[in-house]
């Protein structure tokens, strides 16, 4: 699969993507799946709205639904969405939104997620889109279901439904003190309604369940070990697989001999074109068999860290003429007249997602039908990958996505699923394939490396006049400036990436914010203006101003005076509906040059907060993860091989790296809820860099800023972390 396609797919956020039709879903399916009750679906087309409230007789469900909700005869509510729980806590927050509109307790809601046989088609869980898109859709369905239940009660009691209320899973008649539980109302019914509008939703200011810090759904299963992650799935008669990997990227197989492997008891070697793997009764035997395969590879010469930024900036991938995304006024003229000029180049190394659970899949065939359990943010995308790779129709493939050991944008693809399915077909038995850490570090994809060039001009008083921003390869998320600058050029330049690259939490927004907010700091310093005052002077966006002010107040920015051993930095931005400002306090040991981030205050606003407890957890985690990319994470590679493909060599943030973290939440109940999984990561790197600058006067323009050792070709900052 081309990395570019994967990457652009998310850039477009589905705008140009036509989802294939939903499940073929008719009345018989409804009865078989749900056994009657009340079914509410959300259709994307307004035409469906008119098919409301019909009984089932001969009625067919529309084939294009984005979510559905079912209330069974026992009153149990199940909500079906193709979204995936990857640790971001949407299983909880979405259920809260449904409970709120349906007027039930939180515990009455069961979320059925990420199963291509049970849930409606969904493009995938990325782009911080679950909360702003799936949230209102589920609320709409729940509100419609509540309305129907009240109408059903009104019909039974022969009263005007408008005089009834719904609460705690019951419809109440205040006048007569009568009540009917939802189960009593749906028993014996076969009622379906398709809705599409989102009117009459409960405003966030009136929320009682949404907007509160309900603990993670099924939290107990995570402290007892009973939750089954994709790698924990066990099937009867299951074998274990392992896959032969080339010696390097873009390698071609010159010769192979699997005979020694096949001599091992109960081992089967599987060849299918370029694919070679083994199955065995246990993983140790599978690894032994793999090691017994004699393969010769030709690995072509290819770029390494040393040439990376030259390749991205000047390589042949840039031959195509591209236009800037955004142009305003004349940057050239404005720079001519500017009293302060700053011209800087920033570089970003590749980093790895390194989810603690590597890719894993269990594949099981039943005739020509395939079921795969796997960890992916795109179960329907993986279903299509499987169908294409195994040459079977998509409807013969079921992908089940158990809540997984995280992804951070790194599990959009279905490599392990396809490999497990090939092995299982050849073995005639279910096969589990768990990628090793080394495989995950080598054969997954990376956050793109990049080169960013900035030219800025300002008046002596700190008024920004010109802003020119070029991003080579890393991406265009968060590429625009939130500051009011009359003359601008903003441009993304595609390049040929030496390594396979793809989505990562916030995409390129972390890199673009690092460069922009660092360069902003350089302009402020050149103008002799306080970094916060300089930003405020050039900022009209009231939401962004509010988070800057909130972070600065909590941090004590006014009193924070940097010394050579202690620096204070601030940075912020907005992306995907989230507004963030981050203050960092950094300690630098002048003898050892060791950098330690001591304290971080981050202010956040993303509209009405659905679950403040989950949100704090997400934001705090984003700071810790972002700290790794800021200071020390980097992928080292040479000539088609990853050189630090293990946790001993690739440094991850640990307890001892973690600063004191304070999160300030601004709850805007008057604004729609936006997603919060990604943008919380963009402020930390520039805040740290700006703090280092404030302490030392040295501007660090490379991510990571203070690695164990500089990557080849990279100037050494001299700082360590």
């Amino acid at each position, binding site marked *: 699969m081309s990395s570019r396609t994967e990457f652009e797919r998310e850039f477009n956020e589905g705008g140009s993507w036509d989802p294939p039709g939903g499940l073929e879903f008719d009345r018989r399916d409804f009865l078989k799946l749900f056994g009657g009750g009340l079914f509410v679906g959300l259709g994307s087309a307004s035409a469906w709205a008119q098919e409301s409230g019909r009984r089932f007789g001969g009625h067919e469900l529309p084939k294009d639904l984005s979510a559905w909700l079912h209330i069974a005869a026992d009153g149990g509510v199940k909500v079906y969405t193709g979204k995936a729980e990857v640790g971001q806590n949407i299983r909880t927050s979405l259920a809260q939104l449904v409970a709120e509109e349906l007027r039930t307790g939180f515990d009455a809601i069961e979320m059925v997620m990420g199963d291509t046989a049970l849930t409606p088609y969904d493009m995938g869980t990325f782009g911080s889109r679950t909360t702003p898109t799936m949230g209102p859709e589920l609320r709409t369905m729940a509100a419609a279901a509540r309305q129907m239940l009240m109408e059903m009660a009104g019909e039974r009691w022969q009263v005007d439904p408008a005089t009834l209320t719904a609460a705690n899973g019951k419809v109440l008649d205040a006048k007569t003190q009568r009540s009917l539980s939802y189960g009593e109302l749906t028993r014996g019914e076969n009622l379906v309604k398709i809705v599409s509008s989102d009117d009459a939703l409960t405003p966030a200011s009136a929320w009682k369940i949404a907007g509160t810090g309900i603990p993670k759904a099924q939290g107990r299963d995570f402290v*007892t070990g009973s939750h089954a992650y994709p790698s924990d799935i066990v099937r009867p008669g299951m074998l274990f697989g392992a896959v032969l990997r080339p010696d390097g990227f873009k390698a071609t197989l010159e010769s192979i001999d699997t005979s020694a492997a096949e001599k091992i008891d109960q081992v089967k070697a599987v060849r299918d074109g370029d694919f070679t793997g083994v199955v065995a009764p246990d993983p140790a035997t599978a690894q032994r068999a793999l090691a017994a395969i004699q393969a010769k590879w030709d690995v072509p010469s290819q770029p390494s860290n040393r040439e990376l930024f030259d390749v991205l900036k000047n390589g042949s991938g840039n031959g195509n003429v591209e236009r800037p995304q955004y142009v305003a006024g004349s940057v050239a003229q404005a720079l001519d007249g500017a009293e302060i000029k700053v011209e800087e180049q920033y570089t970003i190394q590749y980093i790895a997602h390194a989810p603690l659970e590597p890719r894993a899949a269990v594949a099981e065939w039943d005739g020509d039908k395939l079921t795969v359990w796997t960890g992916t943010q795109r179960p329907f995308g993986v279903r299509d990958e499987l169908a294409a790779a195994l040459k079977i129709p998509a409807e013969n493939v079921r992908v089940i996505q158990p809540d997984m050991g995280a992804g951070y944008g790194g599990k959009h693809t279905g490599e392990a699923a396809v490999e497990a399915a090939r092995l299982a077909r050849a073995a005639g038995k279910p096969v589990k394939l768990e990628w090793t850490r080394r495989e995950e570090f080598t054969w997954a994809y990376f956050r793109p490396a990049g080169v960013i060039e900035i030219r800025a001009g300002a008046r002596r008083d700190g008024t920004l006049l010109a802003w020119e921003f070029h991003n080579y390869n890393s991406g265009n998320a968060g590429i625009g400036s939130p500051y009011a600058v009359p003359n601008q050029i903003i441009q993304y330049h595609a390049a040929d990436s030496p390594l396979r690259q793809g989505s990562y939490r916030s995409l390129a927004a972390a890199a673009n914010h690092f460069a922009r907010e660092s360069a902003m700091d350089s302009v402020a310093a050149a103008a002799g203006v306080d970094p916060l005052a300089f930003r405020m002077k050039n900022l009209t966006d009231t939401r962004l101003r509010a988070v800057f002010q909130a972070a600065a107040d909590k941090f004590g920015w006014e009193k924070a005076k940097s010394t050579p051993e202690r620096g204070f930095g601030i940075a912020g931005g907005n992306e995907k509906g989230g507004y963030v400002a981050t203050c960092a306090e950094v300690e630098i040991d002048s003898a050892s040059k060791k950098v330690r981030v001591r304290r971080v205050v981050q202010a956040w606003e993303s509209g009405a907060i659905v679950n403040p407890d989950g949100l704090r957890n997400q934001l705090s*985690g984003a700071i810790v993860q972002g700290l790794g990319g800021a200071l020390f994470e980097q992928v080292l590679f040479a000539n088609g091989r990853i050189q630090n493909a293990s946790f001993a060599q690739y440094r991850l943030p640990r307890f001892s790296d973690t600063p004191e973290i304070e999160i300030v939440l601004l709850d805007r109940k008057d604004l729609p809820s936006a997603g919060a999984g990604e943008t919380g990561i963009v402020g930390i790197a520039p805040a740290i860099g700006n703090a280092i600058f404030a302490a030392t006067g040295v501007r660090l323009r490379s991510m990571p800023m203070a690695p164990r050792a500089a990557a080849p070709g990279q100037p050494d900052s001299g700082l360590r972390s």
Partner: protein
Amino acid sequence: MGDLLLHVNGARVNVNAPADEPLLWVLRNRLHLTGTHYGCGEGQCGACTVLLDGRATRSCLTPVGAVAKSKIVTIEGLEHDGKLSAVQQAFLDEGAFQCGYCTSGMILSATALLRDGRNPSEDQIVAAMNGNVCRCGTYPRILAAIQRAAQQQAQGARR
């Protein structure tokens, strides 16, 4: 392949496995105790942590043949009569997880740290837990959970 008699979560179990097979794979694949997780296979992340006679041990680097005489406790063995251990309960109360994949190892490392009524300082907790990775970055809450469990243990001892 040899027959091994192991002591796991308070019970004697027979396992047919080569003596050099990592304990992690025995637990996960032969005993189906899947709460113990693979993260790196080189003892660098702590996802596979189990207790061997009360000590936190990386099961990915421990050959099963070496533990026949030890009492092995996995995450599945901490709960007694439907009651969570103090550390488990503290993790739940603090919401000290995101994806939760590291949680078993965190809880077992913390359980070993707090054994025999120990009440470690924050620095001691950080030092002891530094071999456990939470890629979701939940460290502040995990730290708070361990401190909460330690506190409860201390209060319980005073009563």
